[in-house]
Each structure stands twice: as structure tokens, then as C-alpha cells.
């Protein structure tokens, strides 16, 4: 089996992650699904985040189980919770570098220590931070997987994902994914390569805008809690992270009703995590009213205006005065 020639996009992602090998795969869940399958055997066991959603969640819950793997869902940002799930047949821990939608940063270096001590592979889904803000392989992760959209491709909307790590393992993942899909087409690969060159610039703008939106939300009386990590709340991350990305979420005091067509403001319980069902959402700590915000690289004034409108509209009405009551 000869090594396929690497595309420009694969070389760039490899350089960004400090990876010896990378493979671009068609399908946003192909890299994570391929990694979980390639690194495990029938009869094996994997640990994945409880709040996992989207095509990877579907794959893990349905396909992976049918392929003979057992799956434990837990809070993968909590080392103790991960440790409590370990079994003799555990082979892989999958974690997201930033748990979406609660935006908790994953202590990748500590998880890597646990994984190495227990002879496990640690796979980090770094979609939310991108290699511009976190390089999991430097911290001891076995493999890193990322969806290309929205950050790597600059919101072009490529339905693709990338896996990076040691050549032997990347080749296994690529071979696994090739059974049900294919490598990314050359045109998409070229688009991605062109977009990657400005990744650091985009992530810088995203972080700046996200902090601005968070500052507005923290000052609004209709907001109970804002979920956006920083180096004050996660000082341990100063050694590992260069930032916390361009996503935040908040808990309003009264339910919001964002426009369904607005992708920058959404309710995870009704969109990305609707498929989990109420019980599993509660177990993962995702309330029905939690709002997820994804600022773009454009100035956030319009987004702040949208949020202000939603919060003001949701403000509880003043208590009604019973009939017959006299005001003095």
C-alpha cells in the first residue's frame, strides 16, 4: 500500500498541527468516525463526550455499537469522570478541545497523561479551537481530528474533515474511511489550502469579536451566565492554549426565541443537540434555554444588536395588577 501524495491542504494542516501525517477526508464526521473505528477492535470500548452531537454522535450511537464496540458517554473535560469509565477493554478516549455548547476547555495534557498511563489512545476533536489556538499533538494526544467547517475553511462550507498524527495511525484511519467514502476532491482541497493561509488572522478576529459579545452579555440584566473560558477561569491553560476560540453560550433569565435562519444565534436544544433528547441533554448539562452564539469575523455590532433585541423581547413582563386594586 503506497502512501498517497499529500495535497497542499494536507501539508498545511500538518504544519499547523506539527503532525508527521495528515489526511483530508470527505464528510465532516469521517475523521472522527474513522479514527474511532480504526483504533478499536470489535469487543473494544471507547469513551466519548456526553454532549457529543451531529454526525459523530449518530455514528457512535448507532454504527459503532453495531460494529461491536461499547461506548461510554461522560464529561471528557473531567479527568475523574473519564477515569471512572475505564475498563480493561477500553481503547480510545475521544474528547473535544472545547466542549460545545457548554464551552468547557478540555485539559488535553492531563487526559494525555491518563491515556498514556492506561495504554489508551487519546483522540482530540479540535474543531472549536483550530491549530491556531491549540495543538493537541504537542500535548500528547495520539490523533487530532477536525471538521473543516467553519474555521479551517473560513466558512466556505466544505463537508470535509481532517485527521493528523503519526503516519502509521493516519494511514489506518484513511484506509478505514476509504471503505465507505473517499479522499477529498482536488477542488475542495485547493479551496481549503487557500483558506488555511489566513487561519491565524481569522481566529484572532473571531476571538476579539467573541470577547466583545461576551462583554455585552455579561452586562445585560437578562443574562444569568455566560460560558466563555478565559485564562482567569482556566489558568492551567496558559501553558497549552493560545485562546479559546470563537464560540460562546449563555443562559438567559427568560427563554429566547432566535430566528431559525440565523446560524450565529441558536438554541442547541432545538438545533445541534435536538437529537439527544431531553434526558441525555439534561445529563450533559444542556438546558432547554441555553443559547449558543457564534460570532463571525465581521464587526459584531449587528450580532450584539440582534442579541439585545432578543433579550429585551424576552424580558419578563411586569406583574399584572389584579382588578379592583386601587393605586394610591
Amino acid at each position: 500500500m503506497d502512501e498517497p501524495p499529500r495535497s497542499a491542504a494536507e501539508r498545511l494542516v500538518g504544519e499547523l498541527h506539527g503532525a508527521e501525517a495528515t489526511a483530508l477526508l470527505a464528510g465532516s464526521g469521517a475523521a472522527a468516525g474513522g479514527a474511532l473505528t480504526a483504533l478499536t477492535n470489535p469487543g473494544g470500548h471507547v469513551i466519548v463526550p456526553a454532549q457529543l452531537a451531529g454526525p459523530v454522535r449518530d455514528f457512535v450511537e448507532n454504527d459503532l455499537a453495531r460494529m461491536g464496540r461499547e461506548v461510554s458517554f461522560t464529561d471528557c473535560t473531567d479527568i475523574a469522570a473519564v477515569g471512572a469509565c475505564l475498563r480493561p477493554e477500553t481503547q480510545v478516549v475521544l474528547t473535544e478541545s472545547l466542549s460545545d455548547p457548554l464551552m468547557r476547555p478540555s485539559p488535553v495534557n492531563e487526559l494525555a497523561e491518563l491515556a498514556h498511563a492506561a495504554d489508551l489512545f487519546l483522540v482530540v476533536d479540535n474543531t472549536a479551537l483550530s491549530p491556531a489556538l491549540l495543538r493537541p499533538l504537542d500535548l500528547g494526544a495520539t490523533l487530532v481530528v477536525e471538521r473543516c467547517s467553519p474555521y479551517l475553511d473560513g466558512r466556505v462550507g466544505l463537508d470535509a474533515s481532517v485527521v493528523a498524527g503519526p503516519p502509521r495511525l493516519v494511514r489506518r484511519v484513511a484506509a478505514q474511511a476509504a471503505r465507505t467514502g473517499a479522499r477529498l476532491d482536488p477542488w475542495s482541497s485547493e479551496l481549503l489550502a487557500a483558506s488555511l493561509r489566513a487561519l491565524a488572522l481569522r481566529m484572532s478576529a473571531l476571538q476579539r469579536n467573541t470577547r466583545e459579545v461576551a462583554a455585552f452579555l455579561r452586562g445585560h440584566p437578562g443574562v444569568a451566565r455566560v460560558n466563555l473560558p478565559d485564562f482567569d477561569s482556566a489558568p492551567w491553560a496558559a501553558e497549552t492554549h493560545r485562546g479559546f476560540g470563537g464560540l460562546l453560550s449563555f443562559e438567559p433569565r427568560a427563554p429566547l426565541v432566535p430566528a431559525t435562519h440565523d446560524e450565529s444565534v441558536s438554541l442547541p436544544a432545538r438545533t445541534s443537540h435536538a437529537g439527544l433528547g431531553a434526558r441525555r441533554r439534561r445529563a450533559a448539562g444542556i438546558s432547554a434555554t441555553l443559547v449558543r452564539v457564534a460570532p463571525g469575523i465581521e464587526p459584531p455590532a449587528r450580532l450584539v444588536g440582534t442579541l439585545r433585541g432578543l433579550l429585551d423581547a424576552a424580558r419578563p413582563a411586569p406583574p399584572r395588577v389584579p382588578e379592583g386594586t386601587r393605586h394610591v
Partner: protein
Amino acid sequence: MCNGVDVTGMRELAVASRQASWEAQAELNVLGTPAAGGRERVRTLPMRLGPGRVARPFALTVATAPTRPAAAPDLGADAPSPMAAALAALGGCAAATAATSLAVQGAYATGISVRAFAGRPGPSLGAGLELDLRGDLDAGQARLALEHVRRFSVIRRTLAEPAEVRVIGTWTGDEPRSVTLGPSGAAQDRPATAHEVRVEWEGGLRSIATSAGSRMEIDQPKQLFGADSAPNPQEYLLAALAAEALAALGGRSGSGAGTGTDTGTGTGTGTAAELHVSARLDLRGWLGVGPRPVGLRNILLQCLWPPEDRDGLDRLVHWTGHGAVLGLLRRAERPHTSVTVNGLPISDGLPVGDGLPVGDGTPAAGDPRPIDGSDTSPYLQ
């Protein structure tokens, strides 16, 4: 990919193993428990392999009594004996090694048949391998495949070299005690009857072994370039040991080979005994990287039996001196190995006794060939 063997993957593992020794360390485990009707159940446990784990929970049934369990036909009516399982390991490993060797040489094989045997007449244990390679192959390719089988077949080297086998027995009575037996160089009983297993290579590292109505699939985990379809040869060998020891604890001869060492105290109905067998494997030896041992090392049997069985320790001690499969390991005799191509014998051109180094890879006296991986690894040429 040639002969279904992922040569590129093996080469990558060889390179990775040379750079980082932990990538090449494997630990295999099986757990045996008695079943009814003179059968033992052996499960493969997760294997540690380099920085990760391999989990393939296969269950094997091994027959340690000659009678079929009519009342329990699901318990392996045609289960192999421990000796058949051990010979299947020997033959399956040789077939996979020959297929790999031919793949490395770029030679396509249409078939590989192996006869693995033990107990043939002669002064030794009479164990050996006869390989028949089929396809458009020349004598040079066959000779190199034979040499690779002699050098890199893990089970053959395990049997050929002095292997440390430790047995720890623990009695769970009100006065628990453990005993460690061996390693010792005590002579073992040779099999009283001849045994033979036929192995047909299926492709890649997969083979099917047959013996007296029993059928055994042999494969490797995908991490070792197999297809996860069956236990690997090393697990078969450990399963054979586990079954034989369990049978001895249960008072049967254990090998299913007529060793004549049946203590005659057991009824074969099964006890609550449990037997864990583990072994270590340095894949650098298998890959020919550096002067590393090729065969299994640190073979450890840990037996646990119930308190009401006060004679278990005596039977276990007896087994360590007379077990047929254990004897194959502890006698450390090189299995005779020969090759034919499309049925025609090939002169191997090697001196008697293979001329191959044994033990930790130190060249034997008079052996001009170094075993250093940079010179001998088929994957680093």
C-alpha cells in the same frame, strides 16, 4: 499489498519500533475456566500493544477428554485438543510468516499448506513443520521464505528456544498459599502418540487449521495487520497451555494426546478453577529489528482453585513435569522445518540444526550471520 499482507504497514512498524522500543512491546493474556464434558473454555483478554490496547474477546473451546459431551453439544463437540491448538499455532504462524516473506519478495503465492506435527518417532519430541508453497515461485524465493519462517516465526522460535515458563498456583482455602514452579530444565514426557494439524493459508495473515474434525481459524488483530477475525497463533498457544493445565487440575491428562499421565482422580465434570496465562512479545524480534528474542517471553500461568480441592497443588506439580504442550515449550527443541514448491522438495542449503542463533539473539558458535535487524530485517532492506 501483496498476498494480502500489508508490507508497508509492517515496514512502518519496523521503523517505529527501531526508533521507540515501546512501540514493539506486546503482552498477551488468556483466561481459562472449566466447562462440562471434558471441555475447557478459554477467552482471549485485551492485549497490550505498544502505547495502546487490542481488544478482541474470542472464546475457544478446547477438548481435554476424548469423549464428546453428548448432553452439551454446544460445548465444542469437535473442539481441538490442547496439542492440536498448539500445533495450529505453530502451523498458522509459519503460514503467515511464509506469506509475509513472499510478499516482501514481491512473489505472489496462490496457496500455502502447512503440516505441523509432534510425537513422530525419534529421540526428540518429533515436532516439525512441512510447508508447501504454491504459485509461480522459484527455489530462491522458497529458500528465503523457509529461512524467514525459521528466523521470524514467533511460535517456532518459542518452541525452539529455552523459554521461561512460570506457574503460580494459589489455593483459596482458609490457609491460602502460592507456589512458584519453574523454570526448570527437567525433561518432559514426549507425546505418546503422533499429532498432526493441517493448515491452509487463506490470505494475508489468516489461516484455517484442521485436526481430527476440529477447525481453527487463525488471524492477527488489525493492529498487527490482520483482520480481527480470529485469535492469533500466540493466543492459541497460550490457550493450549491453559486448557492442559486446567485439565490437570481437574484430574484429566489434559493434552488430549494420550500422554498416559492421567492421574485418574478427576471425573472431568469441571471445577471452579480459573487459569490466567500471559506472555510478553517483543515485536522487534518478529520484525527482525535488532538483536531481540523472537519468541514469547515471560510465559506465566496463574492458577486459582477452590478450597475444597486440597489436591490441586499436587496435580499441578505433576502436570509441570508431564504436560505434553508444556513439554513442547520446556524441551526447547527446534522443530524440523522443510519446504516444497508446488509439491517439489527444495534443498534448503542450511546446515543441520538450522545454523540459526537462539536465545537472546546472540549468534551461535560458528554462525557467520549476524541477527542484527539492520542486516536481517526483511522490512528494512
